[in-house]
């Protein structure tokens, strides 16, 4: 049935009805074009937001302390809550939802960085090596802080690129000593933030243990940056936050609901919530797109019905001289599949092409600078989606041809040959 003849038969009917075939095909092409543009736009929005999340690991969570705002366990309100090194040990060993932990001890705000005659005031992030992954810190040259630095209380520092420019100008900073406060630190690396969160280029990273010891921290910890295990729902993410708060409230005697005693922000909750929105948008896009496609398919079906009606006599002749119902069905069905698939494929290519073009434009704009705040990134459709769209096309072609082909198969030669 897939020989040259049946295709020749189909092409000869298509050739006879060029305009009609074009209009029918256009409705299908338009449907799939819109589907691709909508899906691409949805992806673009979603990717744009994902980039914003990409500043940090999506499962990162920050915790900080303050003063209690309600009495608890016979203790008055207004009491200061302080994290300490034991909390770090607890989080790393006892807390099963928490994967990585980095403590931070704040240095005085007015602390000065100096190298030779150059000096300036910069933010200091005291941390554990795991912060690199949690906050997606990008190392330009040298290395980041490691476990050995922390164990041996080494006076080493990783400086942001802005700090490097301010203090070293063109000089290579690696191995040089800068003064933080009055203490000399060996520069082991330079970090450079990509595109977004460029504020981090004005940050320096020093080992937490070193900072605590040199700047008289005792066992005081100001904030924790942690990553939790990945979960799929906001409820689970909230539960993780809640569990950590309860653990901490037991350790420090404050009401777990007291947001001022201990503050926390779980990125994962926001991430899941946002992704849910995009899933909904994606679903919506598919519904709209499929709806448009169905309109196209109904068009094809309609045309095929008219075609069968017009060809009743021809089908009757064919049947009289020996065409089986199967061969008649395949004639109509294949024509329908051909029209939808070819037209749909054209729409698909044009839709994907347009989105690639938009993507190209966006990338050019971003490369030219000022593309920092794009809320729209890589608005393209992936290969898998295109494949499923193609399958949908072939299927819908068959669907569109089904009723008309049944009608064609039911043509009786006697009646067909009777109408002159």
């Amino acid at each position, binding site marked *: 049935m897939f*020989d040259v003849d049946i295709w020749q038969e189909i092409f000869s009917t298509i050739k006879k009805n060029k305009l009609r075939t074009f209009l029918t095909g256009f409705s299908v092409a338009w449907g799939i074009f819109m589907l691709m543009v909508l899906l691409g736009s949805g992806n673009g929005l979603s990717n744009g937001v994902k980039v914003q999340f990409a500043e940090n690991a999506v499962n990162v969570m920050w915790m900080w302390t303050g003063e209690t705002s309600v009495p608890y366990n016979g203790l008055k309100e207004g009491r200061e809550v302080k994290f300490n090194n034991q909390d770090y040990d607890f989080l790393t060993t006892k807390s099963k939802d928490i994967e990585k932990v980095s403590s931070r001890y704040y240095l005085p705000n007015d602390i000065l960085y100096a190298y030779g005659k150059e000096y300036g005031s910069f933010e200091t992030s005291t941390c554990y090596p795991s912060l690199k992954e949690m906050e997606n810190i990008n190392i330009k040259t040298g290395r980041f802080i490691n476990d050995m630095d922390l164990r041996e209380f080494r006076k080493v520092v990783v400086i942001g690129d802005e700090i490097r420019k301010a203090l070293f100008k063109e000089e290579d900073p690696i191995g040089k000593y800068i003064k933080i406060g009055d203490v000399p630190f060996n520069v082991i690396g330079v970090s450079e933030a990509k595109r977004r969160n460029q504020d981090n280029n004005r940050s320096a990273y020093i080992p937490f243990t070193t900072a605590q010891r040199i700047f008289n921290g005792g066992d005081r910890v100001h904030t924790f940056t942690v990553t939790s295990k990945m979960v799929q729902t906001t409820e689970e993410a909230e539960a993780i936050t809640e569990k950590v708060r309860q653990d901490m409230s037991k350790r420090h005697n404050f009401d777990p609901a007291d947001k001022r005693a201990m503050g926390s922000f779980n990125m994962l909750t926001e991430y899941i919530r946002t992704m849910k929105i995009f899933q909904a948008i994606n679903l919506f896009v598919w519904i709209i797109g499929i709806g448009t496609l169905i309109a196209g398919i109904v068009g094809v079906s309609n045309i095929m019905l008219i075609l069968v009606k017009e060809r009743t006599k021809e089908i009757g002749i*064919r049947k*009289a*001289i020996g065409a*089986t119902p*199967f061969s008649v069905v395949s004639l109509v069905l294949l024509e329908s599949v051909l029209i939808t698939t070819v037209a749909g494929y054209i729409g698909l290519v044009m839709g994907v092409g347009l989105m690639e073009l938009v993507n190209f434009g966006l990338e050019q704009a971003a490369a030219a600078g000022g593309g920092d705040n794009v809320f729209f990134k890589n608005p393209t459709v992936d290969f898998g989606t295109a494949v499923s769209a193609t399958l949908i096309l072939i299927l819908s072609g068959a669907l569109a041809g089904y009723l008309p082909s049944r009608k064609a198969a039911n043509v009786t030669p006697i009646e067909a040959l009777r109408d002159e």
Partner: protein
Amino acid sequence: MISIQNLHKSYVTGNNSLHVLKGLNLEIAEGEFVSIMGSSGSGKSTLLNILGVLDDYDKGNYYLSGKKIWGLNETQAAITRNAMIGFIFQSFNLISFKNAMENVALPLYYQKVNRKKRNLIAMEYLDRLGLKDWAHHLPSEMSGGQKQRVAIARALISNPKIILADEPTGALDSQTSLEVMDILKEVNDQGITVIIVTHEHDIAALTRKIIRLKDGVIGEIITNGDLQNYRDRLKQE
């Protein structure tokens, strides 16, 4: 070749039942050249449809070449038609967007004969009917007589046992009609049974046996020798 006993056929439309064939008996031997006549409503179209396996019947027996034609599904009927019967119609019924050769080759397409081979055979048949030069013309570019010859070639190409011709000369002038009848006679001379439905007496008179239907049964059969008398009688009418 054809053996029909006590054939009944009614058409039911709503509450009305129209009894067309009322216990018809008919024997046609292999190689006969027969015409079926009858006034409109006598059941000749219905009989032709049943003979051509285009329609089924209600009661009775129909043996075609020794095989009982009964309860066939559409696919079986199509295969039977393709193998046993060649159709010729009043309005030629060629497919308008196919050229003469492709039209002639079509029955072989449904026998799954490959394209090259069937076009070659089609050319042979067209040549035999003197239409070789017209092989690549569309039906719309041909005269009525030519179209009917193409249709005859198409009917012959599958080597049928029977040619069923429904008013084959109805759309042709008398000269062309005679040419077509000559061709059918040649076909018959090769041993193929030819059955013609017609209402034209002079066409019927060119066959060897005339079957006159009347009210759904055989009214009269006039065979070879009687034909001369029949002609005389017609002249008197």
